């Protein structure tokens, strides 16, 4: 017994001296204010995986300090302050408020800490946003819905958390598209709080109170719920609904197609791996990469846009299904897209990213035969 204890102590001493002697080591804080979503769970998981991968790639030490609890703005401010008090080198934050975190973040950047806001754009001074263009993201599915409806009809909108930056950007995108289709009328708009059950509830309420819904626009997390509500209602002419790129949704979609080949929906990938992409950018900046100011854009002029991975429609559902083995995937898995370390270097330098710079999943090889590449997507969105 005593011997075992001695061995244990020795191992610990060795381990600690190992840490002490490591030549390059970074402490990275992560602040997440919303735990109730599978998307956020995957985001945190991808950050952990990416950190391990980068450690191996560069032979460096990365200590992750993850603050992840359901909390309000003050709580997230406390998260960021705790990270600062721990002396982190960089903070990856998924901001839960458009402006409320700005003072806390500015304090961090004043102290020389690199702050990367992922998923949602904010205007805090000194912070860098690494996000997909949420506005464009929403426009893709709204555009699709408008085309499917032939440019006319009544639609309902189910939005996420009102006031969260991503939701605001998306709804702005939806309104932009709707401005081009004057014959489409919005007859209902409600928040489903990015939650499947709430999305289902909201859609059920819409179906009960409105009899002439032709189309449904919603966002990830809630589309599955909305779809369940529509199917449960068993209508003669069910409305056309926007979907999401989550495995469980794709599975339902696939089954429905077998019974009803006319069924159509769309799932635009909103990658949870954006957190990992943010980590990759942070590491490059910590290692001395020079940020090309010309690469920055966005509403606050401090954003590096990661390309929107792709959209799933009836045309490529089968390909995606096979390539990513969706039939076997856990229902909670969301189709992803993370930039490679090479991609992060290019992003910072302001160079064009190619298909090769984004992986469907951390550590997994590029999936062959995916014909919906980045370039195509980029062209599509720039032609809007």
């Amino acid at each position, binding site marked *: 017994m005593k011997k075992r204890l001695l061995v244990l102590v020795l191992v610990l001493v060795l381990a600690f001296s190992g840490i002490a002697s490591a030549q390059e080591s970074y402490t990275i804080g992560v602040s997440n204010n919303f*735990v109730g979503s599978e998307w956020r769970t995957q985001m*945190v998981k991808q950050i952990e995986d990416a950190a391990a991968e980068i450690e191996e790639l560069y032979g460096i030490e990365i200590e992750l*300090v*993850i*603050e*992840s*609890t*359901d*909390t*309000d*703005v*003050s*709580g997230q*401010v*406390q*998260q960021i*302050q*705790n990270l*600062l*008090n*721990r002396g982190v080198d960089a903070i990856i934050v998924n901001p839960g*408020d*458009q*402006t*409320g*975190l*700005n*003072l806390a973040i500015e*304090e961090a950047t004043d102290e020389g800490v690199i702050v990367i806001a992922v998923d949602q754009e904010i205007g805090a001074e000194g912070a860098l946003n690494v996000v997909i263009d949420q506005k464009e993201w929403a426009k893709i599915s709204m555009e699709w819905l408008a085309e499917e409806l032939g440019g006319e009809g009544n639609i309902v909108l189910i939005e996420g958390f*009102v*006031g969260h930056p991503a939701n*605001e950007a998306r709804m702005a995108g939806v309104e932009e598209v709707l401005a081009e289709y004057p014959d489409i009328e919005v007859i209902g708009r409600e928040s489903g709080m990015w939650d499947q059950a709430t999305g289902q509830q909201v859609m059920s309420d819409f179906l009960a109170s409105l009899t002439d819904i032709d189309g449904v626009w919603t966002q990830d997390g809630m589309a599955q719920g909305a779809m369940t509500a529509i199917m449960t209602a068993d209508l003669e002419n069910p409305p056309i609904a926007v979907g999401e790129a989550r495995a469980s949704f794709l599975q339902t979609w696939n089954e429905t197609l077998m019974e009803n080949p006319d069924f159509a929906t769309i799932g635009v990938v909103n990658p949870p791996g954006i957190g990992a992409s943010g980590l990759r950018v942070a590491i490059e900046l910590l290692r001395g990469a020079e940020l090309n100011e010309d690469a920055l854009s966005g509403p606050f002029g401090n954003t590096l846009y990661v390309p929107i991975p792709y959209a799933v429609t009836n045309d490529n559902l089968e390909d995606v299904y096979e390539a990513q083995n969706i039939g076997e995937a856990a229902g909670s898995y969301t189709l992803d897209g993370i930039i490679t370390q090479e991609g992060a270097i290019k992003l910072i330098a302001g160079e064009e990213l190619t298909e090769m710079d984004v992986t469907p999943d951390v550590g997994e090889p590029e999936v062959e035969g995916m014909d919906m590449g980045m370039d195509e997507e980029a062209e599509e969105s720039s032609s809007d």
Partner: protein
Amino acid sequence: MNQAKFRRFLARNSYLFALLLLVVVVLINYSRQDNLFEPSVLNRNIRVFLPLVILAAGQAIVIIGGGIDLSVGAMVSLCNALLVTWITPETAGGDILLAITLVALVGMAAGLLNGIAVAYLRLQPIVTTYATSFIFAGLALTILPRPGGELPRDMTRLYRRLIEVDAFGNIPIIQDIPILREIPPAFIVIAIVLLLWAFVRQTRLVQYIYAAGDNAEAAYTTGIPVQRIRLGTYVISGFFSAMAALALTMSLGSGSPTSGDAMTLDSIVAVVLGGTRLRGGQGGIAGAMMGVVILGVIRNIISFYDVPTWSQTLVDALIILIALAGPGLVRYISDLIRRYRLQGGRAA
């Protein structure tokens, strides 16, 4: 001190358990975070806690008076929305004071609505204030549909920056204690609230609040204006909500129509942690204010002890539950011991 005296001492100083708990959690926190007592770190912590500290003080007064206020969070949201609507970065000093005064009046008016419904219409406090919370939340959404707004920089700085004190400048020992040279503004606010409370605690009016909460009927028959006292507690809570909103707004520098919503339950948990029982008539605001700091420090502990991501919420809830159960557990165990002794005595 004999047992009966000791019990009376405990009952009169209901915050003692909270104080003990506070010392324990702060020490646990400190064991992992050695910069905890640095002025800047202390300041960062306490300025985040302050809005809830103020809110819980108001909640405590309502609960002592025999009620409960489930609308405090919504009142904070409403006042926060009003503050960022009325104050912009260009607003001059005088107009800022005017806006703050107006917001305080709005908070008191909201409390008045609660008070009339509870004290004069005799509606159940829980249901009433839950219902009015939707009125206040709805108003907040109407006034500020989307988060935004900005305060003048000087105003947020006033709240965030340490205050340098020269008074102790050359006194040996004291001049080496950093926190006495640089004081977080939030400490001053807390000190003022506590001093005011100590000042009014023995006045007849505050004694009436305790009496009304302890036994309303008995209080009524002894000539205490129970209805007016109840009404008053809700108005005070409304005022404290407005002040909490001011602190929150200065802390965040911006507004959101849902900014205070999550604070309601936390304020009640803090009051109970602070030794005030929900049935009223007993307790105090000092304990409630400590309760808030305890809640905040628990979150720090979770952070500094590297609790795995997936169990942070669970651990947070478990620690709070244990803390809440603490006094009850102590009582239960001491009862067990006494009963055991009594039985032992009979056997012998």
